[in-house]
């Protein structure tokens, strides 16, 4: 991907993120992710109905990478089935950790394919993934 385009997408999603702002609704799964390695701190909430992600929202304080990744990822996951979400998350994680992955599945999330060059920012890019995984884990444990 062209560096300028990559930067443009990340910046747009940082400055005008989608799905930012929490709502008061008990039917959502909720989780707080306080990064272990830096100062990003986001609350996430996700609504699942009939095995499909109906909505994901987030809010808090975090850097450009975490915020933009949360915006792009929530947009990507809303409307997908839980199985599709898991596949996307696995491929996303593989991309960040420099393993084999299917870039066709990730769409705009491919903007983070260079983040491995900044090891201290990998966790920033992974923050939305970790949050969604935690909520899916809670859902499965609750079953």
């Amino acid at each position, binding site marked *: 991907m062209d560096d300028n385009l990559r*930067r443009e997408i*990340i*910046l747009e999603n940082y400055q005008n993120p989608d799905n930012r702002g929490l709502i008061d609704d008990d039917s959502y799964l909720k989780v707080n992710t306080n990064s272990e390695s830096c100062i990003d701190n986001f609350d996430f909430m996700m609504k699942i109905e009939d095995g499909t992600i109906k909505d994901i929202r987030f809010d808090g304080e975090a*850097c*450009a990478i975490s915020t933009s990744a949360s915006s792009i990822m929530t947009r990507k996951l809303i409307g997908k089935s839980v199985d599709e979400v898991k596949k996307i998350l696995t491929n996303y994680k593989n991309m960040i950790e420099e393993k084999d992955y299917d870039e066709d599945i990730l769409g705009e999330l491919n903007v983070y394919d260079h983040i491995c060059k*900044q090891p201290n920012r990998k966790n920033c890019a992974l923050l939305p993934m970790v949050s969604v995984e935690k909520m899916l884990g809670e859902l499965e444990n609750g079953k």
Partner: protein
Amino acid sequence: MNREDFPMLDNNIVYFDNGATTLKPKCVIDEMNKYYMEHTSNIHRGDYDAALKTNELYDNVRNIIGEFVNADPNCCIYTSGTTMSINMVVFGYMRKHLKKGDEVLLNKAEHASNILPWIKLSEEIGIVIKYVPLNKDYSLSLDNIKKCVTKKTKVISLAQVTNVIGDVRDIKSIGKYCHDNNILFNVDGAQSVPHMKVDFKNSYIDFLSFSGHKMCGPTGVGVLIGRYELLEEMEPVFYGGGMNNYFEEDYSYELKSIPTRFEAGTPPIAEVIGLGEAIKYLMNIGMDKIHEQEVKLKKYLIDKISNIKNVTVYNKTSDSGILALNVDGVFAQDLSVFLNKYNVCVRAGNHCAKMLKDEMNIKNTVRVSMYFYNNFEDVDKLIEALKNNKEIFNVII
């Protein structure tokens, strides 16, 4: 000043993260290397030449510390750092001497290591923690402390210099007040002892803690100093070799005298020796000179930074080398990543003072913390980088 003593400065960096840890002068590194290369041995057990030399160096560091902060060398306990020292005070002394309902005065600018142990103790025995309100500039006054004191106040615990705001608390006046009112005075010296002259005996301090690595010494070593009669009443947190006279099948045991009874197990020998060398190095420069240089640098930095419109500084008036700032609309960590591109090393975050947000209404800042080896050129490089902050996202993404 003294830049030539620091090998790390050969790497073309501007090191402004001294509040986290300082660089090490070559003399400290050499002294530790000597222990590893020439006289490796354990302490207090060997009768061979290397062990005798190690003993002599290791034991003498207590004298160096005593001279440095005007304390009885026998009351200087080697620890792993300030965090361990404060935990020893809280769980070794306070747990035994405080009771349910007793009040401990803290404030919200304190580092986690001077809040969390107290919260844990409260969970265990029901002490009550009260937070003394800060002034508008986030400093702490004796007047505000006095307003919070009740008949139940048993302890006042505070940092002499806070690690985000960098305000210098008047510990002599606070100590005198504690002394006159029968209140124990616990001082976190992690950000003060490395930067200014601290006088344990004449400041009415009951317990003083500090870390070696924040004062040109190695990581893994620190100091707890206590008044002798309090240390006699303090229980060790750790038990094992080196700190006992005997132990028997009938459960009886006897501990060694102070300070050895608080130093179970093999201590960080090279680090203690390195700390001694670091203190000698600092005393040689002179603590007043060190403080003077830091304040001069901060003043210069503030003069320069006020010309950059979109930079907010939170602690212009504090009398130390610490500056907390943000660039409008930029997350603190993004700014620190940006500054790294200019080889400027700073720290972004809440700096372990997680309650300070209640007073400042801001969670995260970029902290510039200076030491005597920083110079005006370092400040100029930071200013140059900050002036280019419009470029931040082109640089970091």
